[in-house]
């Protein structure tokens, strides 16, 4: 059974006609061409597919688009403001926090929410916030460093306070 849905992704509204049983992950990647959202298990076990719904990190592999109508969805493609990267993206690039880069979109979005809730997180708080995102490349070290750097930079420019 297909259903017509209106989804707001990265501030843009998309009308899609999709089977109800397609997950948000599948619709983002296969119907909207937003392949920045990755997947590593499709069972809620790795965090790779994280997107923000109303600003909260959720697992797109376990979310149904029918439940997402009228809610703001943010994917990694929506993190930058025009051509200006989010400070997290900048810091991840500069510090080598993305090795293979596959876990990166999910981690960036999870960290974005963390910094909104807690602009000056401790290292332990960052670890706790990112405990639902597996990365097999980095040992998390540079990822934690990059979140700290971004927090520091965002703190210095409260005007940019996203």
């Amino acid at each position, binding site marked *: 059974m297909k259903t017509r849905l209106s989804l707001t992704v990265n501030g843009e509204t998309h009308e899609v006609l999709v089977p109800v049983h397609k997950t948000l992950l599948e619709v983002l990647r296969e119907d909207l061409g937003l392949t920045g959202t990755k997947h590593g298990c499709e069972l809620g076990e790795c965090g790779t597919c994280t997107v923000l719904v109303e600003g909260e990190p959720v697992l797109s592999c*376990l979310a149904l688009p029918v439940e997402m109508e009228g809610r703001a969805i943010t994917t990694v493609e929506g993190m930058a403001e025009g051509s200006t990267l989010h400070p997290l993206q900048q810091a991840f690039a500069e510090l080598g926090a993305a090795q293979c880069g596959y876990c990166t979109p999910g981690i960036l979005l999870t960290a974005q929410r963390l910094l909104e809730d807690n602009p000056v997180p401790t290292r332990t708080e960052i670890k706790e916030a990112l405990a639902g995102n597996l990365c097999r490349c980095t040992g998390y070290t540079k990822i934690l460093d990059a979140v700290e750097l971004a927090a520091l930079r965002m703190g210095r420019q409260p005007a940019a306070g996203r």
Partner: protein
Amino acid sequence: MMRLPAFTYLAPPTVAEAARAVVEHGGEAMLVAGGTDLYPNMKRRQFEPKVLIGLGAIRELRGVSGRAREGLRIGPTTTLTAVARHPEIARHYGALATAAGLVSSPQLRNMGTIGGNVCVDTRCNYYNQAYEWRKAIGFCMKKDGDICLVAPSSSRCWAVSSSDTAPVLWSLGARVRLVGATGERTMPVEALYRDDGIEYLAKRPDEVLADILLPPADGWTSAYLKLRRRGSFDFPVLGVAVALRIEGAVVRDAKIVLGAVASLPRSAPAAASALVGERLTPEVITRVADLAAGPAKPLDNTDYAHFYRKKMTRVFVARALRRLGGLDGEGRAEEEVA
């Protein structure tokens, strides 16, 4: 990519309509809240409902109300994150906030609900596998087959109750209100569970969990400890929920409930009553921990060896009691070295 099987999706606006919808579709329909338990199970074909009845649109199921003094009402579609962060819960029903905050990962807690957690499917590492895997090893009676692979001579399923909040709610004396197509009932949360890995809930499919009701918190303190290999993602392979009412250092009332050691949460009444009238001395704690481990009969169908889970029951009960008695010298090991 693991994908969901096809289904129709309904989003009724009221509990009554939800219950009616289940009845209308016979055995074809299932309720779904956050979907974090049901969807992975559906992708592995452990459930194949033709109709899903989403509870997300039902306003009466959402949110926390009341005060600890007179008791709290938690709407079952409240997310685990919201439960863990709720100040009144964190302050007066500490173990519940802890348990909710220990479920899987932060993202999952933003989606998963406490109602879904109370009703979460039992688990077994012969069962939580993809369809092809289960077919290869031979289907078991929990789905598609007729034997038990853990205990082949058994006529029942021993899948493990794996909810973090269920043992805590039991230890806190929580009650649940169920609303079905033909009426409603309220009962202690423990009455919801059956000692069977398949029919693990004593509730009709059309009955919607509508309220989780916590009694007044007066004088109770509580703790929840969870055994698992990693600090995130993993289900409990042992949960220890302890609630105590202590007056002037003497335990007046006690409840100890174990999670993930059987197909339902297991209370340890003998251990609990051995605490009553006692102070939390190391000797008492050791004795109670031994007693509490009695009801734990884990089988070899989760992570960690079952003998280890059994052994840890004593350790974790003792730890929980030490924590509540203020006897845990957390951090002293570090001081020794520093």
